[in-house]
């Protein structure tokens, strides 16, 4: 209840969602750069495939020549030729809890 209350204030103040929650934000710049904010960790990293865990699911990137340019606690920048982005949702029950 308290959490919801805060969310309402945040909505009124128009604070970005990724700041006050663990919602993932994916920004694609051109076809060769992708920034994922609010990530949890890297599950797999190959030259042709990157699997990134976030709080709401897993993001799979397909392509080739992937580099991880910047790594920080909250966001990650991947560069390379991106050919596909896949999203694996976590099971709904888990999300509600």
């Amino acid at each position, binding site marked *: 209840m308290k959490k919801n209350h805060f969310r309402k204030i945040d909505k009124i103040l128009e604070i970005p969602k990724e700041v006050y929650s663990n919602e993932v934000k994916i920004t694609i710049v051109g076809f060769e750069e992708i920034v994922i904010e609010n990530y949890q*960790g*890297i599950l797999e*990293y190959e*030259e042709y495939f990157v699997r990134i865990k976030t709080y709401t699911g897993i993001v799979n990137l397909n392509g080739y020549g*992937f580099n*991880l340019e910047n790594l920080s*606690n909250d966001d990650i920048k991947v560069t390379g030729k991106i050919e596909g982005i896949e999203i694996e949702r976590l099971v709904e029950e888990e999300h509600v809890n």
Partner: protein
Amino acid sequence: MLIRILLCYIFGYIRVSVEGYYIEKLINICTNKKIVIWHLKRDKNVKLYFNIATQDFKQIVKIAKKLQCHVKIEKKKGLPFLLHRYHKRKIFAIVAICILAGVVGLSHFIWNVEIQEESGQELEGIYQDVVEAGLATGTLKAKIDTKGIINQVRLKRQDIAWMGIELKGTNAIVRIVKADSKPEIIDETEYCSIVSDKEGVITKINAQNGTMNVKVGDTVSHGTILINGWIEGKYTGIRYVHARGEIEAKVWHTKNIFIPYTSTETRETGNFQNFYSIKFHNFEINLPKRLSKFKIYDTIESEKKIRLFSDFYLPISVKKTTQKELEEQQKTYQAEEAKSIGKQQLEQELEAEIEDKSKIVNKYSNTYEKEDGVEIYVTYEVLETIGTNEKIVF
């Protein structure tokens, strides 16, 4: 994040390659422990390259040991490693420091004094005056008192309307505006007479105030009094006044030239040679190739100061000496030819001298033939208003 990476460039960073199976785990541990790694690149299946700050390297080795990964240093980058590479080259370091100190030291002095005159009017000896006032090449910039120099130069010279000194780098720019020289004005209340300033024959004289001293047809020379500054009355006696009047006179402008029948003329052939020498104050080093290959030649010298940037002059200058080859040519004139050439030349000179061409009354020319040439005289008769005020001194 970006600032931390930039700091790593200063404090040094290492390009590391890690080989093993749990590479993703290594990345996650690094992010959890807040170890900054960047530019990650996966090579084939088992190898990972990344950059890491030098102080975090020990931690990475520990983590890799736990994960049974093999760590290898690929490259060391950044300032500390660069300095370490050069730390044995002592002479290089000393020379580098000397050059740096030299440039910094030299930048505290003035090495070039540039004088800019407004609208191209030239002032004679201004450079000398500026140097005497204290703005010479080689003086410390901190010791230059621009206001004092300006005052000193302006006190010394009357023909400066405005003067400004700007110190830019090692260059001192002196900007000068020339003052128009004004004639001496005699006050209306003071007594004066009108005096001739040219030689000529009076054609018209009209005194508004004062007594006429000359008549029409009189020949006057420089300094003859034209209108006296007093009026003599029968009963009042001599009364001094401010003389006023108009005097017009025929003034002769004469020029002469001697043109020999045979003359040698020099002409440029178009060939030239450049010599360079390096000059440091009064010390000059000639670069080789000094002897000229021409028999007759003109030498033109130009000096250019070396500068590092736009306004950073150095006390070294390059002197360029250009030698232009000349050719001698014998020329012979007939008497008539010489006369016409001489006349034309003199007429051009005279016409450039006379401002109002409509006032030219007569043109005379005389020629005297001699053994080896012709002497030509050209005279212009011009109507001019003459006379200047001169104060009467009692």
